[in-house]
C-alpha cells in the first residue's frame, strides 16, 4: 500500500479529535449529569493540543534522551507527592494541583517510563538478540533493573488506587523488553510469574475492584449496582445496530442511563449514535494511525528513537483495545480512557506529547 505517511498520520489524528468532539458534545448536551463545560474545555485543549503536536514535532526528539531520567525522576516524585498533597475524587487519590491546574501524574508516567526504559536499553543493549541468540543473557542488567524502574511507579499507581493505569504500566514494561530484544526466556518466565501472582493481586485489590471483576463474570448479580454500567453500555452499543440512532439521538446516552459516558465509556455513545458503521470508522482511523506510526518506527535506525517509538505506539494501541473491549463487555472494567476522545486533560496531553515525538522521529530519520 503506497500512501503518504505524513498526511495519513496528520489526517487521522485530526479526524479522531474532531470526531471525538462531536461525540463529547452529544454526551454532554443534556447537561444534567455531564456539564456542557466539559465540551468547551475539551474543545479548548483539543485546539491547543493540535498546535502543541505541531510545535513538538519541531523539537529534536534526541533531546528527550538527555532528559529521560530527569522526567522519570520528577514524575515518580509527583506520584509520591500525591499521597501527601493530592486530593480525592471518585474514590481515589490521583490528582495533584500544580499552578492552579489539576494533573494526574499517573498518566504522565506512561510517557516518562517509556523514555526512561528506552534510554536504559539504549545504554545497555541486551547481549542476546535475534541476531545472536547464543550469547549469555545477563539477568540483572537486562531484566531486573528495568523491572525495578517499572515496578516502583507501578506500585505507587496501584496504591492510588488506579488498577487500569497500573496494568498499562506493566504492559509498557512487556513491550519495551520485547522490543529491546531481551531473551524470550525471561519474558516467558516473567509472564508465568505474573499469572502465579494473580491470587496475591486479588488480595490486594479494593472491594470495588473485586466487585467489578465479579460483575464482569456475571453482570446480572448486581444489576443496579456494579453491574449497571456494563449492562447499560452493552444496551447502548447493541441498540445502535448498523447505522446508529443518529447524532444527539441516542436514548441511552441522552437519558442518563450511561454513567461515565464522557470519559471511560465514551465509546458506548459512539456505538449507540453512530452504529456499527461509526464504530468501524473510528476503529479504522485508530488502526491506520497505529500502522502508519509503526512504519515510521520501523524505518528508524537509531535505537533510542526506535524503542521510544515502539513504546508510544504500543501504549496507544493497548489503551484503545482495552478501553473498547471493556465497553463491549469483553474484559473487566478498569478505568482506562480512549485516547484523544475521552474527556480528560492529562490523558489528552500525554498523547499529544507522544505524537509530537513520533512525527519528529519521522522527520529526523527522513521518513516523513
Amino acid at each position, binding site marked *: 500500500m503506497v500512501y503518504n505517511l505524513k498526511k495519513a498520520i496528520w489526517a487521522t489524528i485530526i479526524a479522531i479529535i474532531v470526531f471525538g468532539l462531536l461525540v463529547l458534545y452529544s454526551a454532554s448536551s443534556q447537561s444534567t449529569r455531564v456539564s456542557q463545560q466539559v465540551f468547551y474545555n475539551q474543545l479548548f485543549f483539543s485546539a491547543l493540543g493540535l498546535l502543541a503536536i505541531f510545535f513538538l514535532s519541531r523539537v529534536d526528539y534526541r533531546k528527550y534522551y538527555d532528559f529521560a531520567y530527569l522526567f522519570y525522576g520528577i514524575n515518580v516524585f509527583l506520584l509520591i507527592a500525591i499521597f501527601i498533597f493530592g486530593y480525592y475524587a471518585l474514590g481515589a487519590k490521583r490528582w495533584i494541583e500544580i499552578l492552579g491546574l489539576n494533573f494526574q501524574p499517573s498518566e504522565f508516567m506512561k510517557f516518562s517510563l517509556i523514555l526512561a526504559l528506552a534510554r536504559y536499553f539504549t545504554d545497555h543493549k541486551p547481549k542476546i538478540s535475534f541476531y545472536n541468540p547464543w550469547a549469555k543473557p545477563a539477568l540483572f542488567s537486562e531484566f531486573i533493573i528495568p523491572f525495578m524502574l517499572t515496578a516502583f511507579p507501578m506500585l505507587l499507581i496501584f496504591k492510588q488506587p488506579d488498577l487500569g493505569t497500573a496494568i498499562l504500566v506493566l504492559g509498557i514494561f512487556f513491550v519495551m523488553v520485547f*522490543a529491546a530484544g531481551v531473551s524470550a526466556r525471561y519474558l516467558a518466565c516473567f509472564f508465568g510469574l505474573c499469572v502465579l501472582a494473580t491470587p496475591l493481586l486479588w488480595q490486594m485489590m479494593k472491594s470495588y475492584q473485586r466487585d467489578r471483576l465479579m460483575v464482569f463474570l456475571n453482570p446480572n448479580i448486581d444489576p*443496579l449496582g456494579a453491574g449497571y454500567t456494563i449492562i447499560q453500555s452493552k444496551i*447502548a452499543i447493541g441498540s445502535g445496530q448498523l447505522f446508529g440512532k443518529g447524532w444527539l439521538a441516542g436514548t441511552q446516552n441522552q437519558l442518563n442511563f450511561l454513567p461515565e459516558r464522557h470519559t471511560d465509556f465514551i465509546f458506548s455513545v459512539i456505538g449507540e449514535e453512530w452504529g456499527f458503521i461509526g464504530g468501524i470508522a473510528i476503529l479504522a482511523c485508530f488502526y491506520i494511525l497505529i500502522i502508519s506510526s509503526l512504519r515510521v518506527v520501523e524505518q528508524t535506525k537509531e535505537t533510542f528513537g526506535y524503542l521510544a517509538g515502539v513504546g508510544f505506539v504500543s501504549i496507544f494501541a493497548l489503551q484503545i483495545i482495552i478501553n473498547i473491549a471493556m465497553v463491549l463487555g469483553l474484559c473487566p472494567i478498569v478505568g482506562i480512557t480512549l485516547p484523544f476522545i475521552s474527556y480528560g486533560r492529562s490523558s489528552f496531553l500525554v498523547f499529544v506529547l507522544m505524537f509530537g515525538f513520533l512525527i519528529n522521529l519521522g522527520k529526523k530519520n527522513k521518513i516523513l
Partner: protein
Amino acid sequence: MRLKNLKIIITCLFAVLVLGLGYLQIVHGSYYQSLSVHNCIRIVPVEPNRGRIFDRNGIILADTLVSFDIMVIPQEIKDKEKLFSFLSGVLKMKTKTLLDLYQRRKLASFAPVTVAENVDRDQAIVLEENKFRFPGLLVEVRSKRSYPFGETGAHVLGYVGRVSPERLEQFKNYGYTIEGMTGYSGLEEHYDHFLRGREGGVQIEVNNRGQQVRLLGMKVAAPGQDIGTTLDARIQQFSQNLLAGERGVILVMELDSGEILGMVSSPSFDPNAFLDNASSQRRASYFTNSQAVLLNRAIRGQYPPGSVFKIPLAMAALNTKKLNEHTSFLCNGSYVLGNRVFRCSHVHGVQDFIQAIAHSCNVYFFHAGLIVGPKIIEEYAHLFGLGALTNIDLPYEEKGNIPRSDALRQRRWSKGDTLNLSIGQGDLLVTPIQLLKMMAVVARDGKDVLPSVIKSIGKSQVRREAVLHDISISKSYFDKVKLGLRGAVAEEAGTAHVSSLSDVVVFGKTGTAQTSGGKPHHAWFVGFCPQAKTRIVFCVFLEHGGSSYHAARMASELLKEMKQQEIL
C-alpha cells in the same frame, strides 16, 4: 523482526474488537434495541423489617428501630435549586454536600436517591409536611437494627451486616440479595432464616427515558419473626459487669430444661458498631484485636479443664468398681513416678473418696487414674459429653479434644500421660459449655440435656429436640460424687468454700488448669444449685485468671445477686 509480530498482534486484537462490535450491534442488535426502546421493567427492592430478639421476660435484646431517610426522585424535581436549599436549611447541611451526594448516588431518573440517612424525627416531620411544595421529595421510613445492651451478651446475639459474596453464592436461591442484610454469628446467624423476613419489591414499567410509566405490581415485604430467647437480661448484665476487664466466660443454665439463662463471653464487642459507617474503624479493630473479641469463648474457646475433670474420673472409678467410697490414699504433697515429681496443692494426709473430691487432692486422683487406666477415663469423658458438640443452637461451636491413649503420633502413651489426664491437663481440651453440660448431667443423675437459647419463634413456642444419651449409672454413685461436690463448697477446707452462701445450697468443683509459657493458670468453677427456686447449673471460667479461687468468688457474687433479684 519483533515489530512484525507486534503488528500482527495489534491487527488480531482490532479484528476481535470489530467482531465484538458486530456481535453486539448486528447479531444481537434488535434484542438490545428492544431493551432500550420498548418499555422496560424495573424492580425496586423493598427491605423487610428484621424480627426482634427478646429475653425470657420480654425485654428487648435486639430491636428494629425506625429510621428516616430523605430521598429525592430525580424525574419529579421541579426546581432543584430551591429544593436543595430548603433541604440544607432543615437538615443543617451544606447545599453543596447534599448536591454532591445526589450527583454521586443518582442512577436513573426514576430511582429515588438517598441524600440523608437517619435524620431526626423532628426534621423528618418538617420535611414530610412540606412534601407537597417540593415534588420529588420523599421521606422514607426504614428499619435499623439496634442493640440496647451494647456489649452485654453480644456473642449470643451476633450482629447484622450486608450479605457477603460467599453467603450470597450459598443462599442465592433463598432470596438473599447483595443489598440485603443478614445475621453474622450468634442467634442472628443461627435464626437468620426466621429473623430476616422476605424482601418485597415494586415492579414498575419505565420508558426509554427512564421515567416510570406505571406500577405493574407490588410484593409487600414480609417482616421477619420475633424471637424469644431463654436468656435473662438481668443475669446477662450482671455477668458482664463481673467480667469487665477480665477474659472469661459466665454461663448459667436451667437445670431441668437446659434453657440457657446467661451466656457472656469477655472481652466483648458492640454489635451496634456493625451498623453505621461512622464506626468502621472500631469495627475493623474487632477483627485485628489480639484479644479475639469476636470469639464466643463459651462455645468456641478450648481449654484444659483442670481438676473439674476429676468428676468423670471419679464416676469411672466408682462405676467400674475399681474404687469405692471408702478407698483411701495417703497424700504427702506429691507423687513420684520414676524421676518425675507430680505435685499436689497441699499435703492432704489420708483422704477418702469424698474428701479427695472436696479437697481436689491430685495425689488421690493420680492413684485413681492409674488404677482405672486411660482407656476407661477416655470412655467416661466421652460418656459425659466432653470432646463433643453440645448442639446448642448457636453457630460455630467447637468440639475440644480428648487425647486417645492408643493413637499418639510421636511416641507411646506413658504413665505420666495418664497422670496428667487424671487431673485434666495435657492435651485435653474442652469448651466451657461442655463442662456446664457435664455438670448438669451429674446434677441430673445421668439424664442428658440439650442446652438451648431459643424459646419461641413468632407466636409459637419452640422446643428443640435431639437424640439424648442418658448415662445409666446407679444413682448411689452420683450421690457419692455429689457429696464431694457439696463438700468442696460447704467444708471449711473445701476448695470452693468462698462460694458458700447461707441461703443457697451450692455444689461445685473448682479447676486450676496449668498453661504453657509461664502465663497465669486458667481458673474454673462449675457448679449447680439443686434446691433453689430456679434450679440452675453454672460455669465461671477466667482465661489466665490465676487461681480457681477467683472463679469461685465471682460465682458467689453472681449467685448472691441472683438471690437478691429473686431469681434463685
